[in-house]
């Protein structure tokens, strides 16, 4: 966006924040409306679409067999990829993933991995040889801000919807049987991003706010309320006090979301 418009918009947003208001009439700590739809892609083992306000993210989960990593021979593999699809924003261009989509994928991955959400030991077929690989593909369909929270939520919703093929081992060969079992999950991390505009902390920043905000900080929080991943982003800074304040906001928000989503 041109810098002049940004400056005018920043002034407007600042003036509203001083009165405890936001451009879209939310309170500083309000999340936009959330809609989740699961299982809409029949060909994928799991899928979910999340609408966070106008931000729309589709996640498809594919489960395939592959080799384990040498340092974890008894564990299945989790991989997250994110695509900022060009139809989602005039600023997204086709091509290999840029730093923004790589960061998005890695932050979503970290929340799921560090909370040990997927019980990867149960995805081992033959130790050291064959395991299930869970491919989590994040597809951003409409960008209206806060892609991290929407993507993390869609990824978790898709995993909760994921079915694993039944199998048996015959003479060292894998045979897929009829029927499915749910993907074994141990935790349901929820991610909350807090944005900072001129020392005001806001929850769930949308596009207009993202374009003017100094920085953001994302917390992924597990079922027990512990923090399992953090990512600060943006070209600004936080004081240590602001970080602790943001952490408290995120923890409270997660309790609220957990109740709302029933996770």
């Amino acid at each position, binding site marked *: 966006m041109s810098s002049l418009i940004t400056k005018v918009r920043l002034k407007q947003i600042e003036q509203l924040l001083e009165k405890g208001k936001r451009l879209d009439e939310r309170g500083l700590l309000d999340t936009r409306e959330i809609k989740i739809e699961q299982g809409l892609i029949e060909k994928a083992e799991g899928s979910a679409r999340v609408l966070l306000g106008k931000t729309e993210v589709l996640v498809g989960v594919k489960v395939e067999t592959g080799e384990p990593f040498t340092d974890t021979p008894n564990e299945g593999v989790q991989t997250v990829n994110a695509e900022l699809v060009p139809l989602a924003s005039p600023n997204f261009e086709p091509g290999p993933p840029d730093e923004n989509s790589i960061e998005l994928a890695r932050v979503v991955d970290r929340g799921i991995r*560090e909370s040990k959400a997927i019980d990867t030991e149960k995805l081992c077929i033959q130790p050291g040889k064959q395991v299930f690989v869970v491919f989590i593909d994040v597809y951003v369909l409409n960008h209206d801000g806060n892609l991290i929270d929407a993507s993390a939520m869609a990824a978790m919703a898709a995993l909760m919807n994921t079915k694993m093929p039944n199998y048996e081992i015959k003479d060292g060969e894998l045979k897929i049987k009829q029927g499915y079992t749910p993907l074994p999950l141990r935790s349901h991390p929820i991610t909350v991003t807090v944005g900072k505009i001129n020392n005001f902390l806001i929850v769930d920043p949308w596009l207009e706010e993202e374009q003017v905000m100094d920085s953001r900080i994302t917390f992924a929080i597990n079922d027990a309320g512990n923090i399992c991943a953090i990512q600060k982003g943006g070209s600004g800074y936080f*004081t240590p006090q602001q970080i602790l304040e943001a952490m408290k906001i995120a923890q409270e928000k997660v309790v609220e979301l957990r109740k709302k989503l029933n996770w």
Partner: protein
Amino acid sequence: MNEKPEKLIDKKGIRLDGRKADELRPLKLQVGVLSNADGSAYIEHGKNKILAAAFGPREMHPKHLVQADRMVLRCRYHMAPFSVQERKSPAPSRREVELSKVIKECLEPALFLELYPRTGVDVFIEVLQADGGTRCASITAAALAIADAGVPMRDLVVACAAGKVDDTVVLDLYDAEDKLGVADVPVAYMPNLNAITLLQMDGILTSAELEKAITMATDGCKKIYEMQKEALKTKYMVVKEVEE
């Protein structure tokens, strides 16, 4: 990788490499180590050996990246293929792309970007040997390289990690503690402004442990900050001696 030791910290609270919980690894900082770069720095942080170079402010290429109202900072964090146990492909990995982005964003708050419109500063970081905490050591060196290039800064940026190993919150994790520990919290900090410019975490921590880790990391940063300033001064003291 060896078998996982049962305990990473012994009963007396001493870590596998002989350090106490809140003790930094030995550090060596050097400024102005490369003659072709506008500014450069070398850091040895434990077994980490990292070179950083800064070029600019200079004309931006390619042209479409030029910003009419400010300078553009670009960072490239890269690991040498021989820097780790198993050879790393020289092509940038997704981890390196992410780290390049967060390092850029943690240095930007220190710069007066609006003073140099239409220009660019490039920072190149080469990890020659890695032993845990390379992003932090890279930031410490990169800030020195930018300062050495003569780019005005609000403050130096200094970085240090804290984390949880076994049941203890410790400072400055090395490779084994990073891999086998419970959590790792890298922090970049501008001590004069009390501003945290990078914060990441993976692992599991309670909010009290996280608070302790952040405090421990910023205290560690303050110690390294003194060494950073010393390293900058040392370069110019050497120049003076030559003139005499």
